[in-house]
C-alpha cells in the first residue's frame, strides 16, 4: 500500500522534472473578472488549434492582474481600467505594455423589481449620492419604499475604478453609503439577484432578466440607455477598454495568442460574450 503510494508520487515527480525542456509552452494569465470570460473562451478555442500550448487563467481582479505582471509571475495581465501611477511606481523596472482587445461599459445595475417599478433612469449625481449615503431609500427617487442595498466592489477592481471615476470624479473614491463589498462581476450579479432593492456596478455582459441596467441621464436631459449601439457610438458615459498588459512587448507564443485575440475569430469571441469588439 505504502509502496504503491511512493511509486505514484515518484512517477509524478519524475515526469514533472523531465518536462522542463518539453514541447509544451505555458502561458499564464491573471486579472480582471470582466476580461476573464473572453480570455477563457479564447484559450479553449486556441488550444484546439495549438494543442501543445497550455494556457492557465486566473481571476482576482484588475489589481491582481497588475500585481502579477509587475512581480513577473504571469505572462499576461487582464485589466479593465488604466494602471494607476501608484502601481507603476511600485514596479519601476517593469515596462507595462497594454493592448486593448475589446470595449465594455460599466452599467449602474439595479434589481429588476426596482426597474419594473419605474426607475429606469438615474443621473450621475443621484448615483453619487446613493454611494455617498445621502440617498438611502428608493422612495426618494420616486420608487418603492425600500432601503437601497448599495453594493460596492473591492477597491482595486477595474470595474470600480471606471465607475467611480465617472460618477464621483475620483477613481479611488470612498463610498460611505455602501452596504456590501464584493469581488468579481459574478459575485456582484449574484447579490443583485438575491436582493430586490439593490444597486451595483456591473459590466454590460452580466445584465440579465433579474439585473437590469439603468439608463444614465446626462446633464442635457437625454437618458442614454445601456444599449450596444450607444456604447459603440460612445454615447454612454461610463465606458472602458478591456485591456491585456504584458511586461514589455509580447514575444513568441504570448504574441501569437494576443494576435489571435485581435483576429476576427478572437474578436467574435469578444462580441459573443456580450462586449464590443475593438474595431
Amino acid at each position: 500500500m505504502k509502496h504503491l503510494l511512493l511509486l505514484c508520487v515518484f512517477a509524478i515527480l519524475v515526469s514533472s522534472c523531465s518536462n522542463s525542456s518539453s514541447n509544451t509552452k505555458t502561458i499564464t494569465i491573471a486579472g480582471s473578472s470582466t476580461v476573464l470570460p473572453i480570455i477563457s473562451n479564447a484559450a479553449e478555442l486556441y488550444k484546439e488549434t495549438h494543442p501543445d500550448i497550455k494556457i492557465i487563467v486566473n481571476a482576482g481582479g484588475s489589481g491582481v492582474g497588475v500585481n502579477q505582471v509587475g512581480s513577473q509571475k504571469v505572462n499576461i495581465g487582464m485589466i479593465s481600467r488604466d494602471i494607476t501611477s501608484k502601481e507603476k511606481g511600485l514596479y519601476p523596472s517593469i515596462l507595462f505594455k497594454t493592448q486593448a482587445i475589446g470595449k465594455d461599459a460599466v452599467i449602474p445595475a439595479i434589481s429588476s423589481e426596482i426597474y419594473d417599478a419605474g426607475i429606469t433612469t438615474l443621473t450621475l449625481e443621484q448615483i453619487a449620492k446613493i454611494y455617498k449615503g445621502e440617498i438611502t431609500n428608493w422612495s426618494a427617487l420616486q420608487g418603492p419604499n425600500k432601503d437601497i442595498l448599495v453594493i460596492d466592489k473591492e477597491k482595486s477592481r477595474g470595474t470600480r475604478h471606471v465607475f467611480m471615476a465617472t460618477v464621483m470624479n475620483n477613481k479611488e473614491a470612498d463610498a460611505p453609503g455602501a452596504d456590501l463589498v464584493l469581488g468579481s462581476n459574478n459575485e456582484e450579479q449574484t447579490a443583485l439577484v438575491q436582493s430586490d432593492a439593490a444597486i451595483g456596478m456591473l459590466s454590460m455582459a452580466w445584465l440579465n432578466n433579474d439585473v437590469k441596467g439603468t439608463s444614465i441621464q446626462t446633464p442635457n436631459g437625454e437618458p442614454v440607455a445601456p444599449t450596444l449601439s450607444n456604447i459603440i457610438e460612445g454615447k454612454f458615459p461610463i465606458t472602458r477598454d478591456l485591456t491585456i498588459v504584458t511586461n514589455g512587448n509580447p514575444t513568441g507564443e504570448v504574441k501569437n495568442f494576443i494576435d489571435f485575440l485581435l483576429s476576427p475569430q478572437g474578436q467574435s469571441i469578444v462580441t459573443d460574450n456580450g462586449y464590443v469588439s475593438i474595431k
Partner: protein
Amino acid sequence: MSVLNNKIGKGYVLLSTYICVAVTLLIFIVLFSNSYDALHQVGLNLFTLEWNPSSNKFGVLSMLYGTITVTFIALIIATPLGISAAIFTSQMTSSKGRILIKSTLELLASIPSIIYGLIGIAFFSTWVASIFDLSTGRTLFTAGILLSFMILPTIITLCDDALHNIPKHYSEASKGLGMYPYEIIKNVLLPIASRDIAGAILLALGRALGETMAVMLLIGSIDKIPDPFYNILSPGQTITSKLGREIGESAFGSLHFSALNTIGCLLMVLVIIITITTQVHFKKERLYE
C-alpha cells in the same frame, strides 16, 4: 553496522525535529518581519476605524469587532446546544449508541469549511433576509450561525468526553441519595467537568476565530461597525475575511500588504495563545483522583 544504523536513526529523528522547529520559527519570522513596516509607519493608527489603502489609512477596528462579534454569536448558539447534547450522549444513551453518535459527529466535524460557505450562500443568507426582512442576508448573524454549525461537533465531542470520564461512583452516590437526574447533572457532574468543558469551549473559540472561507462568503465584507453596534443583522468584516479578499490584490512589499500581515499576525498570536492554554489546561490534574 548496527551502530551505524543507530547513528543514522538518531540523525533521522533529530533531523525531523529540527525541520519541524525550523519551519515553525520560519513562519513566525516571515510573518512578523513583514508586519514591521506597518507597525513602524502606521503604529497605533492601526486601531482606528477607517481602512482605505489608497490614502494609507489602515484602521482595523471594524475587523476586530467583526471577528469578536461573529465568534461570540457562534459560541452563544453552539455552547448550550453542545453541552446539552453532550449531557444526552454521556448520561442518557447506551454505550453503543454513544459510539455511534460520536463517530457520526467526528465525520461531521470533518466537513470542509467551503461547503459550509456554499450552504450558507445558497440557503441561509436568503432565509435570514426573508425572516428578518433585510435587504441582504449577508450579515454578521448569518456568518455566526454557520460558524456555530462548524464548532458544534467539537463542543459536543469534547464535553461528552469530559462528562463521560467522571468516575461512576459520583453519579451513583448521588442517585443513592435520591437526587433526580437534573440535580445530579447540575450539582455534581457539571461542576466536576467544568474545567474540561471550559477547555472545550476555548478550543472551539480558537477554531471559530481562524475560520476563513465560510465567513468570507457570508459576511458582506464591508469595513464598518454596524450602527448601532449591536445590530448583528447588518454586514460587517472579520480579520480572516479581509485577509482572504485583499491579500491577492495588495502588492507584495507595499504598506498595504504589511498592514494585512499585521492583522494576520494579531489573529495568529491570539489563536495560538488560546490553543496552548487549552492544551496546558487539559493536562492539569482533575478535581477527582
